[in-house]
């Protein structure tokens, strides 16, 4: 057994936005609390299983990869999501697998080769104090821990049980269409809109973030001119503002919104959105509910 202060990890360098991520805040949407949590949930869950954690343990979500940290006590880490080079004390190690790190060892994630968001799990999980039942950073709402900065010392929980390496890490793959279930507001769009959405290629905009994947491409026209009264929004909803450019709602999306939703992505497609970078091309495959 190690003391908590021995187990802490120190962030020595980071290249982009690094946040704490877990399964998010569920059950508080009626108070305006976004779900938040890991954008690529399957990658987050797998990283935790690989090091023996409960899937609800907090991982580090690294935008674009690029992170160096030093562990206190000897531990195990796993990196999933975006494919990044992984080294321990300078020696290459496997991405997508459990990696042993000696006491005082330095773990380094290089820049993402495939995909956008890498997840690093450490045995015991990052053990900051939960807020409303979650350790996820929600920058828009200001809930949960702030973004990770260089020099941060992050607490780590006690070593958990045996790893459960169920599932194999596969690097994110672009190109396959996103699966979209049409509705609930398809009647707010003109006849050409759904046909366009099922056929056209969209490009991921640089204005995308954890709130939404903003897409640029052929505009989807509204059939109505009045405003939609605000209504509850789900993860993966494709909302279309009057300009006609679709926005896919991701984990930090507002709980209610006032623009019509043309369709909702299935959970696997939502996870794939987490790995799409500005400039990537996106197509949709439409199904009826």
């Amino acid at each position, binding site marked *: 057994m190690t003391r908590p202060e021995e187990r802490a990890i120190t962030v020595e360098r980071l290249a982009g936005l690094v946040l704490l991520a877990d399964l998010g805040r*569920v*059950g*508080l*949407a*009626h*108070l*305006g*609390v*976004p779900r938040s949590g890991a954008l690529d949930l399957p990658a987050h869950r797998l990283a935790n299983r690989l090091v023996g954690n409960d899937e609800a343990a907090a991982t580090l979500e690294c935008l674009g990869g690029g992170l160096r940290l030093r562990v206190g006590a000897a531990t195990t880490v796993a990196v999933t999501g975006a494919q990044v080079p992984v080294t321990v004390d300078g020696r290459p190690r496997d991405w997508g697998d459990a990696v042993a790190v000696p006491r005082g060892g330095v773990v380094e994630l290089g820049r993402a080769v495939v995909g956008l968001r890498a997840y690093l799990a450490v045995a015991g999980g990052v053990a900051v104090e939960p*807020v*409303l039942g979650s350790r996820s950073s929600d920058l828009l*709402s*200001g*809930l949960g821990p702030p973004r990770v900065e260089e020099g941060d010392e992050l607490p780590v929980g006690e070593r958990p049980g045996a790893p459960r390496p169920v599932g194999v890490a596969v690097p994110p793959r672009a190109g396959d269409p996103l699966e979209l*279930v049409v*509705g*609930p*507001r398809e009647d707010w769009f003109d006849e050409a809109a759904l046909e366009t959405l099922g056929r056209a290629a969209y490009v991921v905009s640089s204005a995308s973030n954890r709130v939404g994947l903003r897409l640029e491409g052929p505009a989807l026209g509204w059939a109505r001119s009045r405003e939609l*009264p*605000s*209504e*509850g*929004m*789900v993860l*993966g*909803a494709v909302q279309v503002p009057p300009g006609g450019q679709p926005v896919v709602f991701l984990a930090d999306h*507002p*709980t*209610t*919104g006032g623009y019509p*939703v043309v369709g*909702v*992505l*299935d*959970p696997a497609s939502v996870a794939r959105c987490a790995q799409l970078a500005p400039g990537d091309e996106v197509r949709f495959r439409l199904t009826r*509910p």
Partner: protein
Amino acid sequence: MTGPPTPLRVGRDALLLECAGPEQVRATAAAALARRESGLLVCDEVVPGAATVLLDGVVDRNAVLAELGTWADVEVVDDEDRAVELPVAYDGPDLDEVARLTGLSTSEVVDLHLSTELRVAFCGFAPGFAYLAGLPEVLHVPRRDEPRTRVPAGAVGLAGEFCGVYPRESPGGWQLLGTTRTTLWDPSSAEPALLRPGTAVRFTRD
């Protein structure tokens, strides 16, 4: 009797229940919560909107669709314990603009606001931000053309048919009447939001 709400399928496991008006939104949300409490409905979220109730993460969507016709029978009990008084200093930067838009004097705007019984219709925009319904039509004013990048916590504003109080500093486009010092949002509390769907709200002079 308005009959049951109209269900719309949302993605793989959610339902949006379209209601005839705010009363049916309250009744439908109350029915959903009562059913969830008694185990008849299993879902992650019950989210009232302006004219809808969203059920998200529904485990058996077909069962909900089959029994929706009986939901109207659930009686809505107003929780009078949850009536909240909010003292307001009417020092908002848009008070004159609201007076101009409504054709009232600023003191008439304030008196009307003070004498109105409001109720939280739904929350959204930010944690603890409540959309308060019940404003007289004369106070329905459009949002500001240019939203402010920084609205202070406690700012009381108007937009369309709703009144709202900013729980924390944020950007915002509502017409600001004044400020309350009451804490509306405390994430460390067991009940983080002071104003929840259904809460009755009355403003008083600070």
